[in-house]
């Protein structure tokens, strides 16, 4: 639009005026160029160096990556991320969709109920972690409550059990985000064309068939957004693990995010920490880049 302005004059003021939009945008571009892309390159570079407690610029090739895949804790972290990621995404999506469909049935007090389902996402994972940590703790939480109510054989010590601790993180994370996923699906449901549904109803389709054949297929974009948001949250999740189990018992709930932090800052293996961060970035990029690509192309 800038070139539709009074043509002809090419004074300094005019050139400045034409450049103004870009000038306004440039601080953000510069900041992001340095602090996102520059930093990505820097960490990428570090992952090929022998950096320990401080960054070093001495290149060692793929050594950090080779070491990384030999470390047991990294193995555990990747496995845990798979378990956590799959369950978290699946349960949140199913629960979110179910709640959205239920709430879409012309419910009285819908706004009130929606508020209750959504509020956990306003809380910090650290807060959520504290609440669930003690609630799941067999010493004072659910198990102890059941005992005091007379159910003496009740056992729920997952958080202290290295085989099951990762599932307690799923429990808390699902509690935190499923309401948000519900809101995304609810928005999708509200965007569906009512005429088509009425026509199908007149043809005698049952509610179940209506959802299975018409509504859910139309929610594809909402499913896509939910998947992208949840997957990237799962890969980044750090706070909740720290607050809930601190990676323990032992390394039972280690995930790549906690692994990176401890190798970089407490074990002084910065090169290995950097290479684990690179792998996290690659995983997220594999999900986000195609998504952004399709989103931005559609809109143009």
């Amino acid at each position, binding site marked *: 639009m800038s070139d539709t302005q009074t043509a002809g004059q090419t004074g300094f003021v005019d050139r400045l005026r034409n450049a103004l939009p870009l000038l306004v945008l440039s601080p953000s571009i510069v900041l992001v160029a340095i*602090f996102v892309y520059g930093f990505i390159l820097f960490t990428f570079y570090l992952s090929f160096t022998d950096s320990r407690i401080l960054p070093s610029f001495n290149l060692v090739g793929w050594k950090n990556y080779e070491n990384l895949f030999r470390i047991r804790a990294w193995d555990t972290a990747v496995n845990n991320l798979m378990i956590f990621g799959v369950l978290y995404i699946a349960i949140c999506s199913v629960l979110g969709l179910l709640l959205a469909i239920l709430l879409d049935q012309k419910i009285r007090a819908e706004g009130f*109920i929606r508020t*209750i389902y959504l509020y956990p996402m306003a809380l910090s994972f*650290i*807060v959520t972690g504290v609440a669930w940590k003690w609630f799941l703790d067999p010493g004072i939480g659910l198990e102890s409550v059941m005992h005091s109510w007379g159910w003496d054989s009740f056992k729920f010590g997952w958080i202290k059990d290295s085989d099951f601790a990762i599932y307690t993180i799923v429990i808390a994370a699902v509690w935190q985000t499923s309401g948000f996923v519900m809101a995304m699906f609810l*928005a999708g449901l*509200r965007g569906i064309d009512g005429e088509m549904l009425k026509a199908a109803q007149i043809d005698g389709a049952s509610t179940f068939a209506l959802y299975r054949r018409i509504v859910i297929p139309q929610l594809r974009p909402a499913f896509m957004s939910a998947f992208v948001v949840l997957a990237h949250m799962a890969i980044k999740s750090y706070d909740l693990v720290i607050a809930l189990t601190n990676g323990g018992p032992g390394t039972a709930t280690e995930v790549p995010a906690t692994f990176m*932090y401890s190798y970089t800052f407490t074990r002084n293996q*910065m090169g290995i920490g950097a290479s684990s961060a690179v792998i996290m970035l690659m995983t997220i990029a594999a999900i986000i880049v195609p998504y952004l690509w399709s989103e931005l192309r559609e809109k143009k």
Partner: protein
Amino acid sequence: MNGPATHTATGGTGIRLSRVLLYVILGLFCVYYLLPLYVMVVNSLKPLSEITSGGMMSLPDQWTLAPWGSAWSTAQVGVEATGLKPYFINSLIMVVPAVAITTILGALNGYVLTKWPFRGATLIFGLLLFGCFIPFQMVLIPMARMLGLMGLAGSVSGLVFVHMVYGIGFATLYFRNYYAAFPTELVRAAQIDGAGFFTIFWRILLPSSGPIAVVCVIWLFTNIWNDFLFGASFSDFDSQPMTVALNNLVQSSTGVKEYNVHFAGAIMAALPTLLVYIVAGRYFVRGLMAGSVKG
């Protein structure tokens, strides 16, 4: 509003029964989502002995505000017995400027990207947006060095800067999508009347930006207040934000675990975002819905 529910209005006892069932299920989910909040509130108001004897679910026999007092001003956080108060203040003086600056940048960026298009605008937007999704583990090491070089290491100002940088993407996203729906003819007409870049922004776009500014502010406020990773990585002992201090309080292994104090501290850390959510959450959901229906 025109969901497929319309046909439940046809009546009949089977349908009425299914309505009751529907409300029961929705009610049970309300209990599920409220339970941890109930546990936190109830246990922050009772003496420690009532919690350790298996009474986590019950109301206090003896109501007390002592855990709140302790969490606020005397509890041991790290090495000092300062309570959470100084950290709460750190979080406040971190979140206010960070949110303000980022929102203004986001509004200007959104305005440029939609009303002053140029070659490569979409690419730049895409690159800004990708920055929102990167795992921040990727920037921790260089950022620690950079903050040192800029003289901001271990300070609240350093955290303000970090949150501003990584908030730009989302802020721009919100304003860009919002301004994209704003009639460009109005901007064009104002231009013909001789209005300049900033006049148009100030007089025409800004006055109608209320709804999206609310969404952006809530989003940034909750994210920055709730952040833990940056706080843990880039703050010194006396510049730690609330989340980091709360975690220190809970994880500290010395002495008896004062669960009631932990719960009171957790509520304090949650209160500002909860308040924002309750007061302005309606606009957030509305804004979210408007956004995702379009997208």
